């Protein structure tokens, strides 16, 4: 897969050059360009830094999978299949185990919103041996951020830290999950807008 030659949101939304949606996106040129640069910075970084490329693509395949958005799930599964085919089956099993509908969760006591708490599954990795310690912690944290972000906590970061994630690594992991939450929604929204035109 060649990074830098395709615009991923265009690809996920099925936007062709010169189409009405393409022209629409170009009315917000900086947003269009930098959404792609965000993807490039996360998935084709100048240096791996504290998060390996395999970890990045594995978490992305999981996050896209639990969003149950077929183009995004297929795109990120395809990337993982190229980079680390041995992980694909394990990630598929985790996507199935992590199936949920969000957002839900309990607010921290400090914000005084207990009356709005809603229940939902608290996912734990089904096969930690297949993923290893770091990815197991990363998948559980990613699921927390995707489905019950209001429950994020200092303790959740401690769990990552115990699994070997340092501060820059946690920042990159958080950005990756958060960015995908944006990218998948923009693409899904534009796809719908294109279909309705």
């Amino acid at each position, binding site marked *: 897969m060649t990074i830098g030659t395709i615009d991923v949101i265009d690809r996920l939304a099925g936007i062709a050059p010169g189409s009405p949606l393409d022209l629409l996106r170009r009315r917000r040129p900086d947003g269009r360009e930098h959404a792609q640069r965000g993807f490039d910075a996360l998935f084709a970084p100048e240096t791996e830094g504290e998060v390996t490329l395999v970890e990045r693509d594995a978490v992305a395949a999981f996050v896209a999978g639990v969003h149950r958005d077929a183009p995004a799930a297929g795109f990120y599964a395809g990337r993982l299949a190229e980079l680390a085919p041995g992980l694909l089956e394990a990630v598929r099993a985790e996507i199935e185990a992590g199936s949920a509908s969000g957002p839900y969760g309990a607010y921290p006591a400090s914000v005084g919103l207990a009356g709005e708490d809603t229940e939902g599954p608290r996912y734990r990795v089904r096969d930690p041996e297949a993923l290893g310690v770091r990815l197991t912690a990363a998948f559980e*944290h990613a699921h927390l951020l995707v489905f019950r972000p209001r429950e994020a906590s200092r303790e959740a*970061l401690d769990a990552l830290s115990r699994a070997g994630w340092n501060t820059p690594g946690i920042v990159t992991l958080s950005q990756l999950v958060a960015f995908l939450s944006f990218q998948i929604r923009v693409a899904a929204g534009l796809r719908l807008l294109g279909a309705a035109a």
Partner: protein
Amino acid sequence: MNGFTGEQLGWTPWLEPLAVDELTDEHREALVDKARAASPYFRLLAHDPHVLHARTVTDNDIFYNADGGLPRAERELAATAASRRNGCVFCASVHARFAAHHSKRPDDVQRLLDEGVGADQDDRWRAIVDASAALTATPGGLTPDHLSALRAAGLDDLAISDVIHAAAFFNWANRLMLSLGEPVKEADR
């Protein structure tokens, strides 16, 4: 704290931000706005400067690009609705103030904070809040009916695209603010 509020809140990180004197030129460029070096949130995100830079320029174009589309007030409304639905008290407070200021409709914004995304609104705000909340669901819940309601309320395709981008962007921003630290009352900082 007592639920969602339009009052000014602080935010305190759970991880160590870069110190101001650790910031290199690359970090400062990633902050885009130099004044953000004072913010522990942005100095924490500066641990990954390329992604921070992309995040910030994307944010600025979605909310500040004044070339047609949705008025600023309603981009902020979409941001507030997404934040309210996800449960980001800090993000909701900031963007509720922007929405109230630009729309001059503080009571309607306050009702969104107090009662949530189902609170009564006029038809146009109803359509924007509903689309933003639906897009915020995982798996995504936006439907052709949401787009029809936005069109019926007078939004053209660029304005609808702005709703999509503003709500989607807060699904990025909420997850950073919620997971890397917590809101605090200004007086407690």
